[in-house]
């Protein structure tokens, strides 16, 4: 009988030996997995500059002898924790920025308390962000501030920038930021106004529970969680794989609740009426048109983003009023665009080369 093309019989004993060794390692490492807590995340040295309810403003300690004049304020998405941008040394976006000479601040969120269910979009766009910008200005002694918004943090940054068109935002960088909510097809269907009674939900539960937010993310790729657990078992002998799995899994499941009134506005104004895309969005009675933004802007989108599909993000650059604007599409998904081994090679250097020359 002939060997099938490409099958190397000589390598079979070696392969069997390797698989047996991996099976033994799996058993040993499997026990280790459940008895250890995984890597410490978000450990870049920082100071809490201000904290108020759900909002925290951090200042990261500089890691460079000389820093750019313009400080950077990162606005995190309200559904997730900011440590995705500060995983572990060598895979921390924050650490990368600090080593490249940026003065970095982050507006991060903790779970809104039950009494914060009445926080509205106005509180986020007209209070929290401007308050943090003022504190960054005071702490750094600089008037100009560059803003980086991730996912829905990008939407909040866009709303802030479109209302505060006279500054002090000097540059705006958005990562995977949706503006056309009709194109978030599944989210759009989950919140179909004919069947989704957002008033009943918010009036019943107050803040929208994190389990509901997590389920809606996981429903976008229902098989992926099971497959990733199978992959974990296959690769449990590989310390690097396990470390990476634990970092991302911990972050992905560490979802935050959303303040009820804020969620009501997101559903009605953005998901149902698509007001940001239609130029009819207003926050606290103040028009928030994207054409009002005239500062330099970079929008980074991911080729395989299943949470914010490209169709939901692609019109941002066209609708912005800036002359200096650029969209960059990079390989990766919604999270791997900004964090992990691929981001180190792709997004971060691109951002540095774009922002450095605009930060003096």
């Amino acid at each position, binding site marked *: 009988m002939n060997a099938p093309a490409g099958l190397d019989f000589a390598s079979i004993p070696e392969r069997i030996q390797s698989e047996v060794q991996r099976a033994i390692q799996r058993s040993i490492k499997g026990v280790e997995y459940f008895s250890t807590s995984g890597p410490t995340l978000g450990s870049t040295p920082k100071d809490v500059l201000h904290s108020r309810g759900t909002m925290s403003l951090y200042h990261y300690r500089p890691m460079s002898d000389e820093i750019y004049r313009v400080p950077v304020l990162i606005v995190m998405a309200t559904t997730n924790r900011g440590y995705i941008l500060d995983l572990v040394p060598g895979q921390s976006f924050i650490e990368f920025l600090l080593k490249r000479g940026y003065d970095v601040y982050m507006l991060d969120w903790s779970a809104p308390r039950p009494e914060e269910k009445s926080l509205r979009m106005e509180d986020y766009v007209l209070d929290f962000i401007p308050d943090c910008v003022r504190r960054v200005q005071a702490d750094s002694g600089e008037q100009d501030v560059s803003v980086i918004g991730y996912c829905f943090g990008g939407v909040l940054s866009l709303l802030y920038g479109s209302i505060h068109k006279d500054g002090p935002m000097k540059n705006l960088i958005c990562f995977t930021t949706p503006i056309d909510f009709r194109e978030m097809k599944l989210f759009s269907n989950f919140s179909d106004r004919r*069947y989704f009674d957002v008033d009943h939900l918010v009036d019943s539960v107050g803040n929208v529970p994190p389990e509901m937010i997590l389920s809606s993310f996981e429903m976008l790729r229902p098989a992926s969680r099971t497959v990733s657990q199978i992959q974990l078992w296959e690769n449990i002998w590989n310390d690097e794989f396990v470390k990476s799995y634990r970092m991302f899994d911990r972050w992905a499941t560490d979802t935050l609740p959303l303040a009820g009134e804020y969620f009501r506005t997101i559903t009605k104004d953005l998901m149902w009426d698509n007001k940001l895309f239609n130029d009819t969005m207003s926050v606290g009675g103040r028009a928030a048109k994207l054409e009002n933004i005239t500062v330099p802007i970079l929008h980074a989108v991911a080729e395989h983003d299943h949470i914010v599909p490209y169709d939901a993000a692609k019109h941002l650059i066209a609708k912005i009023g800036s002359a200096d604007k650029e969209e960059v599409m990079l390989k990766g998904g919604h999270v791997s665009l900004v964090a992990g081994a691929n981001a180190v090679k792709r997004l971060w250097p691109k951002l540095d080369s774009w922002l450095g020359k605009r930060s003096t």
Partner: protein
Amino acid sequence: MTDKTNDPVAMWQKMMGEMEKGFNSFANQAMSSPEFSQALNRAGGVAAGAQKQLGELMEKYLVAMHLPSREQVTALAERLQSIEAQVSEMKSMLSQIAASSGIPQSLDAAPRPPRTKRPPSENGGQT
């Protein structure tokens, strides 16, 4: 080197990848229907109503047990939050005063680096 087309482990991994894609795609198609949205939201509405009723029942139980009510705990939390905010404001003001008068803000506070950095292209490629 083993050819990947005949490597059972590689074949298994490829099969898992294909199954994942296929199932996700199938499920996404099913979840795009109005019927799915209707069923999902009907179940969600019932769950939200049940959660509200359970919350009300728990509150009555706590009152019956002479335990502090939710409002009382919340009022305490708000007072604590207000004190925290005031301390934070005072700390911030002290830092500003210290900074403007040249006093080091704490024993381990390193001086801030100068804001003179130029992009690498202007420095002849240095980073």
